[in-house]
């Protein structure tokens, strides 16, 4: 009888269920940060955030610093526990940088690849930027010829033959150079990132 009636009058949508599956905003409210904690966080993450703003989003230094301040102020006011502070700050820095260019867009032209920056893949963003920063540092340790070779091949997209022409050498040697320089960058990268006991 119950099922027959159920056909006549469809059961109401299960609102009870909708309500149970709610946003788990019941996460512990975060206690306010102490001034010292905030300063320590700023000191720890500032370089990475500055790198993102200046290098990735090409925002001028002075404006970048203001954006970093805004990111930390937002972080302080989030009000809920944040497990991965670095990831949160990095994602927020990207958000602030995009906001910056949107605001600037009213008065001046945007960089050519602005649209690329509007939607960076968010997954592992913090790690990606940290790696970029480390590679940037690793390139400083390379000999100029090595750096030029990698730039020609991996950034400008020139073939080994074209690199050979540019460096006035044989394609075979250019290929060898590309391999050796890439190995060298990786060695330096590993040395920088290895935590010493």
């Amino acid at each position, binding site marked *: *009888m*119950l099922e027959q*009636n159920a056909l006549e*009058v469809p059961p*109401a*949508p299960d*609102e*009870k*269920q*909708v*309500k*149970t*599956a709610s*946003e*788990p905003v*019941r*996460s512990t*409210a975060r206690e306010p940060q102490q*001034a010292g904690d905030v*300063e320590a966080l*700023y*000191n720890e993450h*500032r*370089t990475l955030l*500055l790198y993102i703003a*200046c*290098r990735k989003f090409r925002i001028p230094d002075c404006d970048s*610093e203001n*954006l970093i*301040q805004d*990111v930390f102020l*937002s972080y*302080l006011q989030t*009000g809920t526990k*944040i497990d*991965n502070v670095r*990831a*949160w700050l990095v*994602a*927020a820095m990207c*958000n602030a940088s995009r*906001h*910056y260019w949107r605001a600037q867009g009213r008065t001046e032209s945007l960089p050519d690849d602005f649209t690329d920056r509007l939607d960076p893949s*968010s*997954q592992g963003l913090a790690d*990606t930027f940290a*790696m970029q*920063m480390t*590679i*940037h540092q690793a*390139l400083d340790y390379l000999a100029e010829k090595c750096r030029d070779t990698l*730039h020609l091949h*991996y*950034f400008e*997209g020139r073939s080994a033959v074209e690199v050979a022409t540019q460096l006035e050498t044989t394609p075979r040697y250019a290929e060898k150079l*590309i*391999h050796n320089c*890439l190995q060298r960058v*990786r060695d330096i*990268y590993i040395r920088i990132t290895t935590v010493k006991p």
Partner: protein
Amino acid sequence: MIAEVHYTDDHLIAMLEGGDEQAIARNQHLASCATCRQSLDEYRSIVRVLADEAPWDRSELKDEPDPSTVATLRAFATSMQREDEEAETYVAALLEGARETWMPRLRAHPEWRTAGVVRRLAAASYPALDKMPPDAVEITNLAIEIAEHLVPGAYVSDTVARLRGAAWRERAYALFFVGRFHESLAACDRADAAFSECVVDEYDRARVAVIRALSLGPFDRLAEAASLATAAIKTFSGYADEARFVSASISAVHVQFKARDYKGALASLLRLSDGVGQHGDESLRALIAANLGFCYRELGNSEAALAQYALAASIHDANKSDSESARVRWNIAGLLTALGRTDEALAMFAVVRTEFDRLSMESEYVIAGLEVAELLLLQNRFEVAESVCREISARIEIAGLSNTSRALAAVGFLQEAMRSRRATVKLVRHVHDYVRRLPEEPNLLFAPPLL
């Protein structure tokens, strides 16, 4: 002893240079050698970075921390801490006694109108949802009243806009929780408008999007809800916020529920369950379990559904989330009803209604009461069913629910049908559906079905 053989760096680089990813994927040694795979991945990542403009920029970055930023952040943190400490006392005094007294008390104390009080009230609304949902709604009302009257110039940066956004978002959630979906959506609009004034807005707006997606569900606006949920999932993934990633994923699952794609929903939920694991956040596990319960129910696996509901209820009990426990047990009662286990269902309804009564969850109390009336009717216990209807009418009158007169007319009609033994399951469900829809459709007229 056979020495382990690996690819040389030259080999690995040559593979990458070759650019044949399919050949790499087919390579048997790489498939079985973690060392070579890791080296290849590192080279791949480095090559990807070298193709980007950023690492080639040789201009100097200012390496030293900026003293003025440090000073601003320290001053803000200190003042926020002081404000929050003061607010604790204010909020305790403000929320004394019945909720009807709170707003007049706030109006008598202008010194309580601080950012700290807004933050404390927002934080207080969640526990209140567990204990006394109408209180939570009023708490968010107080938070908005204060936030909307703060002077932006008195605080640094976009503090006031952020506070307003947060207050409206908490209100949207509380309204969703009590089933006032239209109002919840309107509050989402206000929250979004406030957050859009902030430099960093996407995280907060993603939280609003989840609530909006949930509140759109009852209106069957599935495409919108799905799109909002998907965008929120992406945002929370970027911010590495597991709890909210799960919550946004659940709101996407709800869209699958609405589209009756229960198999797809089950797969999504099981993936989430694996991701959260046994050691994950308890409230997340309860959330997933409750939804798994619903999904299994719809797929006809009643035993698995009951087990998941029981798990969810026990976690909520342990967390002292009384209203959530009651809601989950309401689902158990509904499932027992569907299974024809009427006596067990009635016993569970009794527990649930006692809880709804204690928690002042009036509308849930009334709806669950009509479900009890249906069960009693199935047992031909007309007199008891009639007395339940009478009790429901009395409750509607006392609680002053929205559209009291219309709800009373419908329940009165049912009561009379019970008395004259003309009531049918069809009629009970008709009244049940009508009363449930009234808060969202206040102009809905009650038209009795043909008996």
